[in-house]
């Protein structure tokens, strides 16, 4: 295995949890809901995902447990922020704090256990293709699933009527409501989708990335996913670029240190964040005609009866 191939494989693995979580949050935000609880949903997904896999011996059951846990967490958010019209920012932050504590509680009995990680795919013929085979056909299934998910989300948002309605709810909830669309129900499904993705992203960590559970193992990846949605200016295609760019800079800075490039490691560690900020500035400068954020993002909607 060549060094470049090894680096690309590491980038794929590092980017996948970010891409999964960010894809869910993108749909949530497109429906006009800002859920800052991604980190909390992820870490609970990690705890439950590992627990499920450890108890059942099946990675797929683990992943499903992670998804269900994420959805349950997101329902708490939906109840507060949509049902009771509580401030979304505060609710999201509370959800993160809750998730960090809850995951420690759930995961306590799994700490120190280990599982065999999700297997890498092997398709005879295809995986053996030199150079690209391992990259295109030889990672774990989550990697390709995350890309398929982004493609699916893009298709849903821009090629289906339901996607159009979801975006309408996010851009102008009053109009969507006036046209007879159930804004709150649409938003609830969007929040649940976000929770499912965050739960799966969290579960990816102990199921495939580092196959054990330790409290706090998401280490801020949920926050990065949130930033990536803004970075991508709420467009699924750009989300892929953003996630892989972030993953690539993260991995490359580690390699640069190993090669002994004479740049302080503190600066190196900050590079992924710097790169994100710079690209963000460039995108917003290149754009004409205001923000691309969903117009009703983060606003509370209470239907008049």
């Amino acid at each position, binding site marked *: 295995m060549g060094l470049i191939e090894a680096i690309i494989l*590491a980038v794929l693995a590092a980017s996948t949890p970010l891409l999964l979580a960010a894809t869910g949050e993108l749909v949530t935000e497109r429906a006009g809901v800002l859920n800052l609880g991604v980190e909390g949903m992820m870490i609970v997904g990690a705890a439950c995902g590992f627990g499920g896999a450890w108890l059942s011996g099946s990675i797929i059951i683990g992943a499903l447990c992670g998804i269900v846990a994420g959805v349950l967490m997101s329902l708490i958010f939906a109840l507060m922020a949509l049902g009771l019209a509580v401030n979304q920012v505060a609710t999201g932050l509370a959800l993160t704090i809750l998730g960090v504590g809850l995951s420690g509680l759930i995961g306590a009995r799994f700490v120190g256990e*280990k599982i065999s990680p999700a297997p890498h795919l092997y398709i005879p013929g295809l995986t053996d293709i030199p150079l690209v085979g391992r990259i295109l056909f030889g990672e774990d299934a989550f990697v390709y699933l995350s890309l398929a998910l982004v493609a699916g989300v893009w298709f849903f948002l821009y090629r289906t009527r339901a996607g159009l309605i979801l975006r309408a709810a996010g851009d102008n909830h009053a109009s969507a409501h006036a046209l007879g669309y159930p804004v709150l129900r649409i938003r609830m499904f969007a929040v649940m989708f976000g929770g499912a993705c965050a739960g799966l992203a969290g579960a990816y960590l102990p199921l495939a990335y580092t196959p*054990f559970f330790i409290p706090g*193992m998401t280490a801020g990846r949920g926050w990065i996913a949130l930033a990536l949605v803004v970075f991508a200016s709420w467009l699924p295609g750009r989300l892929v670029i953003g996630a892989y760019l972030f993953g690539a800079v993260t*991995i490359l800075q580690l390699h640069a*240190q190993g090669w002994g490039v004479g740049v*302080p490691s*503190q600066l190196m*560690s900050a590079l992924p964040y710097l790169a994100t900020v710079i690209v963000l500035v460039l995108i917003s400068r290149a754009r004409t005609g205001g923000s691309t954020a969903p117009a009703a993002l983060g606003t509370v909607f209470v239907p008049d009866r």
Partner: protein
Amino acid sequence: MKKILIAATAAMLATGAGLFGASAADKLKVGFIYLGPVGDLGWTYQHDLGRLTMLKEFGDKVETTFLENVSEGPDSERSIEQLARAGNKLIFTTSFGYMEPTLKVAKKYPNVHFEHATGYKRDKNMSTYSGRFYEGRYIQGIIAAKMSKAGVLGYIASFPIPEVISGINATMLGAQTINPNIKVKIIWANTWFDPGKEADAAKALIDQGADVIMQHTDSPAPMQIASERGKLAFGQDSEMIKFGPKTQLTSIMDNWGPYYIERVKAELDGTWKSEDFWGGLKSKIVVMAPYTNMPDDVKKLAEETEAAITEGKLLPFKCPVIGQDGKEVECKGGTHLDDGQVLGMNFYVKGIDDKIPGK
């Protein structure tokens, strides 16, 4: 994101009946501030083991409270003060980054005794304590040089502070006694704990040709990556052999129990005074995990080295120590570098082909 867990809850419930008789106020209250979660299987986990060992020793004479996930820096001041205000008479702050906040709170609460781990600032009511982890690193260096086929070691470092730098130097000094041309690749993770990033760093080191991985970060992720790739590795802080049964060579384990017992005893007896404690293999603060996955001759060599360091016959930083610039480092301890030089170490020894970040 700070989570507060009152460890004493269970103890209080258990002694609930006793509240009517002997009051809980008779008990000595001891507080702990932890950097990570108690389940990190590394640094914080070992401190908590020490706390539990101490509790077992004193039974119901002592009551403990701990705050976990307390981030370093100014933010920790509130947590430390919270413990002081809650009536804890002895407070252990268990990470380097709590140094200034501990000092500040100590000045504010002159009647409370503080113990800060791995720092160098003391006061009338503030002690410091640490482990001579570099002694273990020296042994690891010898093992690593014996076991590495490529002659390239991979080192995942956390922050460029003296403790970490002296660990890298001790490793290399040990390794050079076996193979003078040994190379080390160092990656700074700039975090103590991020399993994903530690795993990525381990992958990068292995992809670049290192075949023995050592870490100064806290999670077992690097061990697991090394195991996956069929390389060798050293654990950190605690026993990690579960994550690499065919991978772990040994692990430097922090064993704080004896120290916590000694200090709490002093507090109970009223003989506590500000001290600077720095114990190693001899005082059993630093303990080596069993030597595994190596041939008998390497194991024997490791055991002999451990015995020699324990008896004081072998000093990892014995003079002459040659710096990266090829010049001899001033020998303040007579035959070896003195403690101050090790505690403040900010240079690499000859043979490390890298620069300390930010220097």
